[in-house]
């Protein structure tokens, strides 16, 4: 039993953080947002994608026999946190963390999925996994292929060009939305094998836990912005951050973050490399999504309050992090669905609980 990240895991997260510090500056994010809004080429996106590609994160979770590194979800969780922290305008987490391992399993069963997998592994197009029904899906218009589960539980892979997309404007200006009409389109591949079903279930919980990790990163970034501003802004002859009202506001947010973080990490650690996740792991993932969502909501609310009227202005970069935090609440399991699952699994008695059951899988 030990609960510490390896040097390699910490170093990988540090490298991503440094890269995103350079490529997700406020100026870069604004340029991307305005390009997305006007449907023009993104002036900062190309370099950013190139740099991300060179960091080599794409194949991390893909099995070794398919050309990947075969790593586990715990090896990706800190990277997702960094992507959140930076409000990254590319679907790196959805692509490398959620969809690719599933596409890998599909390609094992269905030769037609091999070419899309090879393109994705070569960073020539994003792959997405749309597991939340008819809701708008982010980055669909930027993707190469998308997977989903149809009503009878079969996994399907579509080329984006074969689908009808309706672009929609969302709150988060860095996360373009679209609703998709799947009906009538012919999938590139479809599969109902138990292996792909298990991989689909696993992709879904990876989505929840990595989204939670992104929210952790966002929450911490929002607190840091609020601390910086309240330390600098002076009223009544002193920094406003020297007032206990603001100290306690931000301390409360930090407490929520500190007690969400180990839940997110434990949830990631509870997930297998392949095969369907167990019931206890699913409960921990649900817990993680709720805890990180709460922390991010609180952080966004407090950060705006700490910035006063500035916090309500378009001019401030803080909006990117707050809006991403809110948008992610409904991604890979919204609060109501998650709360219902905790109710069914814990309160209704499906999962054993108690002091000796913390790590039962």
């Amino acid at each position: 039993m030990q609960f510490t990240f390896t040097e390699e895991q910490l170093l990988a997260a540090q490298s991503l953080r440094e890269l995103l510090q350079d490529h997700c500056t406020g100026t870069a994010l604004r340029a991307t947002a305005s390009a997305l809004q006007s449907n023009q080429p993104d002036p900062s996106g190309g370099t950013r994608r190139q740099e991300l590609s060179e960091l080599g994160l794409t194949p991390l979770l893909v099995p070794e026999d398919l050309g990947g590194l075969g790593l586990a979800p715990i090896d990706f969780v800190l990277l997702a946190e960094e992507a959140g922290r930076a409000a990254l305008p590319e679907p790196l987490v959805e692509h490398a963390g959620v969809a690719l391992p599933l596409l890998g399993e599909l390609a094992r069963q269905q030769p037609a999925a091999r070419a899309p997998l090879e393109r994705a592994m070569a960073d020539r197009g994003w792959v997405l996994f749309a597991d939340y029904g008819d809701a708008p899906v982010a980055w669909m218009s930027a993707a190469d292929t998308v997977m989903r589960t149809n009503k009878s539980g079969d996994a399907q892979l579509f080329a984006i060009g074969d689908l009808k997309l309706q672009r929609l404007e969302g709150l988060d200006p860095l996360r373009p939305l679209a609703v998709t009409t799947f009906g009538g389109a012919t999938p590139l591949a479809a599969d109902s094998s138990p292996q792909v079903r298990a991989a689909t279930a696993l992709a879904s919980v990876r989505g929840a836990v990595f989204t939670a990790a992104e929210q952790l990163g966002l929450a911490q970034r929002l607190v840091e912005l609020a601390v910086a501003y309240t330390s600098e802004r002076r009223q009544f002859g002193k920094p406003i951050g020297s007032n206990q009202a603001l100290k306690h506001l931000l301390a409360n947010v930090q407490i929520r973050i500190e007690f969400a973080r180990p839940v997110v990490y434990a949830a990631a650690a509870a997930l297998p490399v392949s095969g369907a996740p167990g019931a206890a792991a699913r409960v921990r993932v649900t817990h993680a999504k709720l805890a990180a969502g709460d922390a991010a909501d609180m952080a966004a609310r407090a950060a705006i309050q700490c910035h006063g009227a500035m916090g309500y202005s378009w001019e401030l970069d803080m909006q990117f992090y707050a809006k991403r935090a809110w948008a992610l609440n409904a991604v890979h399991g919204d609060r109501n669905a998650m709360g219902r699952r905790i109710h069914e699994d814990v309160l209704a008695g499906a999962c054993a609980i108690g002091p000796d059951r913390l790590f039962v899988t």
Partner: protein
Amino acid sequence: MAVDLKYSENEQALRAEIRAWLAEHCPREPLASFDTQAGFEAHRRWEATLHSGRWSMVTWPKEYGGRALNLIEWLIFEEEYYRADAPGRVNQNGVFLFGPTLMEYGTPEQKARFLPRLAAGEDIWAQAWSEPQAGSDLAALRATARRVGDEYVLNGHKIWATRAVYADWAFGLFRTGGAAERHRGLSYVVVPLRASGVRVRGIAQLDGETGFAEIFFEDVRVPVANRIGGEGQGWSIAMATAGFERGLMLRSPARFQRTAQRLVELYRRHAGACEPGVAAAVAQCWMDADAYALATYMTASRLMSGGSIGVEASLNKVFWSELDLTMHRTALSILGARAELFHATGDDSESTRWLEGFLFALAGPIYAGANEIQRNIIAERLLGMPRAVG
């Protein structure tokens, strides 16, 4: 190092050993409150029973009656202890506060003198920090220890001294320098509560019991050998103790996981009569208790690989104290009108237990450093916010 959240074979064997021992030795019926004379002595006997199985001080070195368990193993012990609903630890001040302090700062003679008796429950320890004018601002304390030859002469008035009514010894801070020296003029001194010139007066708490007390010192003479650490070093030694207390060992997560489990079981029995919002509150309590446990495993792992306890102490203290209160309030809301029954027996003894727990939980955000002080520490030392001006 890695994130490997599975117990090793040794850890599983330890758990089984603890479980079997507790199943055999744990009292079948709850003991009377340790804030009554009879209950105190019953709990003292339980400490001796624990000691006979070498389970009283599991993290202590073997030479002092411990098992030298590491922090993960300690968490396993605590999980089994609370799972078995074993009695509260009447010597908690000694086990988790004074003992570790003595092991770090005491002389070999002091360790030999105090630790074996502490481990066996022969000496039960109380703490004597606060004074009427020195609560959160502890460095303003006034009680003095005046050096006369080989002795200190203690004078002053301590208050809110937990367990002092029936305890044998107290550890506390006394001023050996001038008042202007604030925290630099303090020394850490231990004193027998039966010594001549010591007067203990119990203070009735919200629940009517005398869990804490005032201690009056009038020309109480103790040998200089009762000072732990150097003269004037009392503050830093006490702060190290406070770090232990708030940080990790005062409230192990298992305690709250067990309460959360009881809360879920209570909810299940009353689910049909509960308002919709109650389920969400119960679920939140269960999640927060588990979150505290996971955070503690992370801290324990970090400490075991060479880290030291820092501001986690303050984060933990705020989190568990508010969680404990929320869990009890939630339980009372489920119990409805019967939640008000006090000292009830029979079918209502469960609701009385929640009510007593609620009253006890109210103290949590106050003792071991008020939560407002902890939030200041979090804001200033972890977040780096500016200190108050003037």
